[in-house]
């Protein structure tokens, strides 16, 4: 079984994240760039399958040069190889364009199962698994809290606002996993040493069988919300509850 995990590099959610005033894109300089937390769990789902069955695990990312370092970390966890789609012409791609390029690279590589995160922490589109599946003409089973992989199908519990659902799709398919899946393993020393020798293949737009897609959506303006200032802070001496009620009453909240 060949599993391709789509991994994304994002600004660390522990740092201050910004949109750049001029490019109107997410600011990538001067911030720590990390592997998206949920795509880390997507790698873990693939590696768990590799632990118990015969599976090849390939990582794929579309992103700037800096993404190579993140792919190397994923290789240290145990993935076999990585594909880095990198091209200046891809800067600022919207979701539709990103999905077209990823799908073309996935088609070129061949796959049985594609695993995504359900939602990235920066764009938060929550749409990529379904888009890539539509581009490839395969089913998607997404927002999975649990994943069961067999030789011919993938199944699991799908998250939902009012109900969870048990879903099942024949392979080849695209799935996405939620943060309820297990946390990633740690890289071993041996894993780190081996990762240095594993291949990261670089793919440019011209390598792909694709009519150059253009972005269909564009940001017109961005405004930053003014920072919040702290208000009153009291230490409870037995009267705090009453003072809080006074505050809520004077603010017309009770």
């Amino acid at each position, binding site marked *: 079984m060949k599993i391709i995990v789509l991994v994304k590099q994002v600004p660390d959610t522990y740092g201050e994240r910004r949109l750049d005033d001029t490019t109107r894109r997410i600011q990538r300089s001067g911030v720590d760039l990390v592997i998206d937390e949920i795509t880390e769990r997507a790698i873990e789902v693939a590696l768990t399958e590799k632990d118990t069955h015969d599976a090849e695990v390939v990582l794929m990312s579309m992103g700037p040069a800096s993404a190579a370092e993140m792919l190397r970390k994923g290789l240290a966890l145990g993935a076999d190889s990585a594909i880095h789609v990198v091209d200046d012409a891809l800067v600022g791609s919207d979701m539709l364009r990103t999905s077209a390029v990823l799908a073309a690279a996935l088609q070129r590589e061949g796959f049985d199962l594609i695993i995504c995160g359900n939602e990235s922490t920066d764009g938060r589109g929550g749409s990529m698994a379904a888009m890539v599946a539509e581009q490839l003409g395969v089913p998607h089973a997404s927002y999975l809290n649990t994943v069961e992989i067999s030789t011919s199908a993938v199944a699991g519990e799908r998250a939902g606002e009012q*109900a969870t659902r048990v879903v099942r799709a024949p392979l080849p398919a695209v799935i996405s996993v939620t943060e309820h899946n297990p946390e990633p393993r740690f890289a071993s020393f041996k894993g780190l040493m081996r990762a240095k020798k594993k291949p990261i293949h670089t793919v440019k737009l011209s390598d792909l069988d694709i009519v150059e897609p253009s972005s269909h959506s*564009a940001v017109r303006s961005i405004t930053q919300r003014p920072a919040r200032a702290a208000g009153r802070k009291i230490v409870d001496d037995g009267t705090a509850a009453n003072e809080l009620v006074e505050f809520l009453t004077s603010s017309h909240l009770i």
Partner: protein
Amino acid sequence: MPQILVLVEHSQGKLTTVTGELLAAAARLGEPSAVLVGRPGIGDSLMAELGALGALHVYVAEADAADTLLVTPAVAALDAAAKAAGAVGGVLITASIAGRETAARLSVRLDAGLINDAVDLESTDGGIVATMQALGGAFTVRAAAKSLPIVTIRPHAITGAAPAAEAQRINVDVDLDAAPAAQITAVHAEATATDRPDLMSASVIVSGGRGLGSRENFALVEQLADVFGAAVGASRAAVDADYCDHNMQVGQTGVTVSPDLYIALGISGAIQHRAGMQSAKTIVVINKDADAPLFEVADFGVVGDLFTVVPQLIEAVRARQQA
């Protein structure tokens, strides 16, 4: 005026409130048209109500498999309705999990730009412009899509209503065997359906964190919430420790909320939690650690033990309400 297609949301044979919101948004942009997909008979049962909510046309796609295939029936119905309608100015879908994925597949099928989680929409000379909140509400972004925009809209963000209309029914055929799809083999409704307001639309939210210490103690959060008629939220630490259900999580990877009042109990205020609640109008924090970062955004902070302060607060609020 171009038609604006709205995907009807219904559950157990009834329309959900977001359908009216989507039709209200559509009326600002063009002619509101509803697209209804479901099991045979759904059209007859919901036509009149859709007209009352402002739909001029209702495209009805009925199929036995409508409830058992994941996302693809709605995509096929919207695609067929778009073809039947001719000139379509946009497609509006609720920003739920299924809604985002329907929009995603449709955007590829129609080669149309996708805008997710809009909180407002307007028609301008340059086309439809959507307003979104980015990076946990820290930024407001306005975006437009070339050609036909497909927009998912955050539930309860749109107010107002479309004028009632005499809805015209147009049946559309969908071939659900045509596209490969995942099967839904079982549905498990959340066990904790309560009478409390919905987290995303509540005007008051009481949230609990790891400081509650156990599922039993988490009941204190619910008791305070009930005094205010509030929804109950939680931090990820509380969810991970199984003090409460995961659909209560507020923050970066949970729900984004902007209530009039947000009361946080035993939550430290990690940046990922603040990302989901810092646009609340008024924030109250109760935490025993005076250095907890959530105090930095609190309009009123109490440094104290929540197990002492909250029971007193419940009494004091009740007394005030009765006065």
